[in-house]
């Protein structure tokens, strides 16, 4: 069995895991990050897109709020290319509890979160689509963060600094000697081969699957899974992040993301890390919430709905008496202390905006365990982007012109203006071609037609570089995945899109024939 040896093995290539690996790399620690799947298949890839100002937690969780506010400025420094500075507005509607806005404003000021009151006139001039029944409005420092850009950049930077990111490898066993985890056995999701990785420290950053990973070492962690559903609307109705100024609840944030707009989210306890079906009532609820902020919202076209599973720290389920809960929202559990298993620690909870801070705390722990003196510098060292076009809107806009270059660099995804060169670059850098990953990297297929045209085009381009059977199976499963996201929205214009795509795939192209088992 092939094997690797390293100092730190991070399990999970979400924002947390990659953040930890990045921090560790900068401290000169040898790191390998593994993930059971491809980048962005976990919680980080199903993200709302919000770079918090901290306002949301000002009243209920001031520590988190403070952390968000300071991380907000740090992230703008270290990964500016993934952030669109939309600004944010907190709106208290006439129907919202009147005193909350005051309480909230005071709490923000105490924490040091910049809050600027706005007049109704100012707000409506900035965002004419908003409702007029706003009683109070405040401007904050929120922004739109693209998690795919973030994850891909982190991964790229880790590799450039000597770390390894090993995808499609799932940990299926820990090798424990003398109550110490010494190695992990992994199986490849692609070809079922196994390998072993030995390390001095193992960090379980597997997000919703953290409990499954912990169970491999025979330990339990106080995790609760919460499902958050989001809907992407086909067009931006505002260019600013819009928050509801009321006690934090579901469906109170609308975030412009790329060329779309995302409303979220819900908070429903679920029992597992697996994809659970979204109920029509969740969709209706979110659209109705949106309607309150933007009149006509519920008649606008939703593009797709999806959910992410939040791995929450829930100490009420916890019968341990020692945790290293640094903050109420995320927790680092050193299993040596809590369960007598050395070499393994689990990190979960938190939010994407504070990923770097969580990673710093874990990396501090790792450094201490490895007796390394280097301090964290992720707050100043920029995360290097790969050389590719980024997803923010202005980049897409400037490339719309007709020119002699265009026919040579074919527009493959017309909805999102993704070029052939981007797909070829992806092919160059990927041993494994996955349309869903291509989607995360380039935004291919994320526009109104939900890949009706571009999925086949992209597969066509990849055809000479990979096993064709695999490509066709991937195409079929990608198309079906897109279906599942849109089939929840089977009304109005979305219904027409669904019918159109299906007719195109099945009648005009005959895709069902090429994947073999469909008739």
């Amino acid at each position, binding site marked *: 069995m092939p094997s690797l040896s390293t100092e730190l093995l991070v399990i999970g290539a979400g924002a947390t895991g990659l953040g930890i690996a990045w921090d560790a790399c900068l401290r000169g620690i040898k790191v390998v990050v593994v993930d059971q799947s491809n980048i962005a298949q976990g919680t980080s890839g199903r993200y709302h897109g919000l770079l918090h100002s901290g306002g949301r937690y000002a009243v209920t969780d001031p520590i988190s709020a403070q952390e968000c506010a300071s991380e907000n400025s740090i992230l703008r420094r270290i990964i500016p290319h993934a952030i669109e500075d939309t600004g944010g507005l907190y709106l208290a509607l006439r129907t919202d509890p009147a005193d909350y806005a005051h309480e909230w404003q005071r709490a923000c000021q105490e924490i040091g979160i910049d809050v600027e009151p706005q007049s109704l006139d100012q707000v409506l001039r900035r965002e004419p689509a908003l409702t007029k029944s706003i009683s109070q409005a405040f401007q904050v420092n929120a922004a739109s963060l693209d998690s795919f850009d973030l994850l891909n950049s982190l991964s790229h930077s880790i590799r450039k600094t000597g770390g390894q990111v090993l995808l499609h490898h799932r940990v299926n066993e820990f090798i424990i000697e003398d109550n110490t985890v010494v190695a992990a056995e992994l199986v490849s999701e692609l070809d079922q081969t196994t390998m072993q990785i030995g390390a001095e420290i193992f960090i379980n950053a597997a997000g919703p699957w953290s409990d499954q990973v912990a169970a491999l070492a025979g330990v339990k962690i106080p995790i609760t899974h919460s499902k958050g559903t989001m809907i992407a609307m086909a067009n931006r109705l505002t260019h600013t992040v819009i928050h509801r100024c009321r006690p934090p609840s579901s469906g109170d944030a609308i975030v412009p993301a790329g060329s779309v707009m995302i409303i979220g989210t819900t908070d429903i306890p679920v029992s597992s890390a697996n994809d659970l079906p979204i109920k029509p009532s969740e969709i209706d609820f979110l659209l109705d919430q949106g309607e309150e902020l933007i009149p006509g919202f519920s008649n606008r076209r939703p593009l797709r709905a999806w959910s992410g599973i939040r791995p929450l720290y829930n100490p009420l389920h916890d019968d341990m008496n020692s945790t290293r809960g640094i903050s109420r929202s995320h927790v680092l559990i050193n299993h040596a202390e809590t369960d007598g298993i050395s070499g393994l620690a689990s990190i979960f909870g938190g939010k994407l905006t504070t990923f770097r801070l969580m990673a710093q705390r874990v990396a501090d722990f790792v450094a201490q365990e490895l007796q390394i003196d280097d301090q964290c510098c992720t707050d100043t060292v920029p995360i290097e982007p790969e050389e590719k076009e980024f997803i923010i809107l202005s980049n897409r806009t400037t490339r719309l012109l007709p020119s002699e270059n*265009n026919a040579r660099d074919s527009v493959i995804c017309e909805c999102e203006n993704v070029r052939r060169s981007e797909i070829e670059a992806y092919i160059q850098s990927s041993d494994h071609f996955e349309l869903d990953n291509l989607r995360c990297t380039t935004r291919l297929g994320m526009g109104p037609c939900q890949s009706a045209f571009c999925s086949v085009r992209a597969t*066509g381009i990849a*055809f000479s570089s990979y096993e064709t059977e695999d490509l066709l199976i991937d195409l079929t499963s990608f198309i079906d995945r897109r279906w*599942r996201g849109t089939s929840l929205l089977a*009304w109005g214009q979305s219904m027409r899109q669904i*019918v159109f*795509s299906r007719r195109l795939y*099945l009648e005009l192209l*005959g895709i069902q024939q090429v994947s073999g088992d469909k008739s």
Partner: protein
Amino acid sequence: MTDILIIGAGLSGLFASILAAKRNADVTLVSAGHGGLSISHGCIDVWSKATSSLSLSRLKKNHPYRIAGKRALNIAMEAFEDIMHDASYPFSGSLSKQLFIPTAIGSLHCTAYAPISLAHSQMTKGTPIAIASIAGLRDCFPEMLVKNLRSNGYLVERSISLSLPGSEPYRDLYSTDLAYRFEDSAYRDQIAQLWKPRLSGIHCLGIPAILGLRQPNQVYQSIQVLLGIELFEIPTPPPSLPGLRLEQVLFSTAAHFGVNIILGSSAIGRIDRSRKLKRVSGITLQTPSNSRQLKAQKVILATGGFLHGGLIAHRDGSIQESVFNLPIDYPENRKALLAPSLFDKQPYEMHGVRVNSRMQPLDLKGEPVYENLFSAGGIIAGADRQSEGSRQGIDLATAQRAVEAALE
């Protein structure tokens, strides 16, 4: 007051308008936009996907073929072939045989009638062929075509990339851009000069369907002569030329026979409340600027299914027929319109208006809702046209029957 008002300019509406006009009725055709022909392969599927052959008696009683009757289907197909023949756009095929047409990715689409340039692929099975991709046309997938056609039993020797004369285009080209160029005989001569040397050793070539929109048969024959090889066309992703050609022929033929075509306005049904009989008086025509009444003796509703708004799915789960608000059956829960996988059979295909043997929409008691309202095509319930491969056949047969019934 027009004799027959037809709502919807898809295949069924256009066909119905020609049939009625040929019978000397005063026909008006109203449509808010074009129909679905540009996203179709331009062939006539009668019963293409189901494993058994079409036997009307084995169909459910409410299946449109059963309701329209075998006679209507036969007459419709004859009429269709006549129209195509008169327009110099002949089709090949019959009700008793299946043709297999390669798709843009190399699957085989089973159909009953196909235009000559597509049907010609049949002749080539067993002979070595090559597959062409055209520089600048992005919806070409030569490697996929080669692989899948080979799996489907075609002797594909290789693919070949052919370039176009002239300078680099400023953008990706659509199939319609190329079709326009190929309609010019001087351009075809240039093509021949450019391509002929590259085609030595090739006797039969499959190319994306770009050989003209107007006079397609002429372009097709001429190019074959110029290149000295046999060609067959493969429909591209939308805009699909074979579908557009069919649409163009139907629009031209309708205009030629005096159909008054009103495009760009939508229809709201009007009920005639002046008499005791339940009748429609025509429609309110919603033009881009205002609305006006259009009166008609008879109305044929040919608005299709969900795709172009004949049926509207509402968020609350209800389904509405968009012109006359005719009774539709629908599931209680919105989710039930769709199956979990795109590849499954879909409940939404079956929904629509119920009709009797005179193609009159029925109420919940089974009585015609209005005595002078008929319907044709995808708006009619009772057939999963996708799974059966019966889309165009039902369009034509029900249009035929509707016109017969309306003119009785």
